[in-house]
């Protein structure tokens, strides 16, 4: 079972898109790829106040990812704790992973010509820290959650 999840508290999210830039700055990504995104629904009135729902999306880190087996160089790896990441050394930028992914999550980094995707900032996680988007969320709306099976 996947160990981690990023949860958005919609009550605190102000749609400032900070998380998207925190991610890009941490991964040193150029203009183009975007590894997480905030979206919102059409406004509807709730108790006479127009409201919308914000949603956060990055990689789903599937239990059985389609992107991993299709990779010709075995660069797409699912870790024990569920994190799916790309070994940048092995990646050849063929983007087969993007084609296999139902949401086209992996993207090409135009500078390195290799695929990039959310890996929950695993270097930070392994150092006992939280992903960049969560750590720096402007309103503390994003949470890095360790999942636990309720028996």
């Amino acid at each position, binding site marked *: 079972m996947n160990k981690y999840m990023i949860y958005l508290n919609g*009550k605190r999210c*102000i749609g*400032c898109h*900070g998380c998207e*830039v*925190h991610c890009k700055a941490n991964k040193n990504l150029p*203009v183009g790829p975007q590894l997480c995104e905030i979206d919102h629904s059409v406004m509807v009135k709730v108790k006479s106040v*127009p409201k919308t729902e914000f949603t956060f999306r990055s990689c789903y880190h599937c239990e059985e990812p389609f992107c991993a087996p299709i990779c010709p160089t075995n660069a797409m790896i699912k870790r024990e704790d569920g994190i799916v990441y790309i070994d940048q050394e092995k990646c050849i930028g063929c983007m087969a992973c993007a084609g296999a992914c139902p949401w086209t999550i992996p993207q090409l980094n135009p500078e390195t010509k290799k695929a990039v995707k959310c890996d929950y900032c695993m270097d930070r996680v392994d150092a006992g820290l939280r992903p960049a988007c969560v750590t720096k969320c402007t309103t*503390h709306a994003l949470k890095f959650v360790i999942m636990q099976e309720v028996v």
Partner: protein
Amino acid sequence: MTKSVYSICGMCTVRCPIRVETENNKVTWIEGNQHLLGGALCAKGSAGPAMIADKERPQQPLIRDGARGSGRWKPVSWPTAYDYIADKLKNIKSEYGPESVVLSSRGGPWQGMYKSFIHGFGSPNYTNHDSTCGRNTHHSSLSLNGVGRKGFVYDIKNAKHLVLFGRNMFSSLRIAENLQTLDMLDNGGKLTYVDVRQTITGLKSTRFFQVRPGTDYALALGMIHEIIRREAYDSDFIDRYVTGFDELCYFVEQYTPAWAAKECGVREKAIKNFVDEVLEDMPKVIFHPGWNLSRYKDSFYAARALHILNILMGNIEQKGGLIIPKGPGDCGKKGINAIDIPKPDIKRGDGVGWKYKHFDKGPGLGHLFFPTMESEDPYPIKAWISMRNDPFSCMPDPKRQEQYFDKCDLLVSIDVHYSEFGWFSDIILPECTYLERDNGICVQKGPKPRFGRRQKVLEPENDSKPSWEIFKNLADRLGMEDYFPFNSIEEYWKWQLEPTDYSVKDFEEKGFISLSDEVVMYDPEKLDGQFNTPSGKIEILSQKLDKAGLPSLKEYVSPLRPPKGMFRLVYGRSAVHTHGHTVNNPLLNELMPKNSLWINVKAANKLGITHGDLVDVSSEDESYTGTVEANVVDYIHSEAVYMVHGFGREISRQTRCLHAGISDQKLMVNKLDDWDQAGGAINLCEVFVIVRRSVRNPKRRVEL
């Protein structure tokens, strides 16, 4: 080697505390200060390193090499640049007198140095951007409370109800204040939001009033009426500290909730229900008196009405109310040394202090230098030094401004970026970015006062200099060496901290020096002496306004309705941009490369405009037209169109944002003179624009 440095962000003028990690002179991590913000930072804050890497900024001093505004520049060395400016300033001084030089800045905690420079030079003419920002709010607070806009901080976290009139705080982003507001909401607090359109802030509200543009004052008057009628005010506070309450009661009698509801286009019952809530929540109700209320012809009086609502709540120096900021003295500590060269005893060129006696003389009113440039009365204005201030972006009608500025012999721009004014100026001095420069130590007043410090994180990428060094070098060349008695920032910091018991080492642990561990509060029963008005009380009838021949309680006048085919132009900001400063930042430009025109769905239907269509937006005289996409929405008043400020730039070296989107200030043709005689600010929303579906919408394709 990895370094970790505490500093202060500079992507906008909120100046959030940050911590930055670097390796080999590159930023590897940047976050909000954990001790104050729990790591939180906004998109702009994270895009700081992208700005440093951006080559579309001035790389070294540039002297104009063609006509003004032609965009032709000659790179020069710093000594050449300093000499050029110093020689011109000396000539202007000997020919016209030192007072013919104006220095404008963006304000903020380090303005003492810029102000002292111009005072030391011999000119009283220091100014800033505030006549297009908070001047009305500032002057309204001064007229009532005897203290300016910064005379109160808002204890939102402990409030039960926050009322915001057009204060779109979740797009303006003051992170500490935002966190307080969301904490308040999490604790069951209420948020009432008033605007002509639904915003991110309004989304979080528990009550939303969508009002007709320009009717904020009416709604506030209706609220005052109902609060007084229901006796939902603190009569002890009013007896003790307030004069003119009876006159207020008499004045608001005519402004019933029924009247206000009709005027604003809201429901009477909603106003009454709102007052029910206020009754429950007072005194922990904060009416935010606004910030950028340089909007309508009665914004000054609207801001006064909001202050009056706070006074009715009796919320001053109450938990969950308006708190008087405390300084080092309130904590039994000594303050720091600050450069403060007194203003020369010469009439200001903008008329503030002699022609207009009811305004704060501090920064005066920037836009009132233009008539002086024309009339040369009381003296000519011959040079303008702009320190990170862009008059062309913040004030209306830059084409008209160009005509005025052309009368000057010297225009200097000191900035991190190319500004629209800088592009027209004679010389650009590139300041280092906030991550590449040190600034003086500043006092951060508040319930828990602190000393803060911006510290250099990186060595500069370009041939740029920190502002202290620029002013020091200019001062040395102008015979003002004694005013800046230091040669390095370390010497400067040491001199600043001399009177205190602290040293710079004390900043290392947390990035700031906390002057009190506890919140410092005055006794709310003993606030005498806090209100610096002529009577020492909060003056609902202001003696100062009276002397200037201005009413304290102004009769409401309904705003004009736009003629057919025209709309009232309303501007605002987005959470991902700091006006024109960031629209060319690679990462922020990627998020929002252009603005759009928000238009009400019914109004759009009448003009045959559908969502996503290109529309031509023209100034009233049609001398400026821009084309943008229409954002057709339900929740904007049908009289208004809205756009994010900062776009429509025309600087060819900023390729990402060149001609992207449309500029609100360029649509404000002939509006430079439309300013508030009582509050001092320019009326930036007294502007109508023409909207048409653009012929540029493609019908078919004829090219191969």
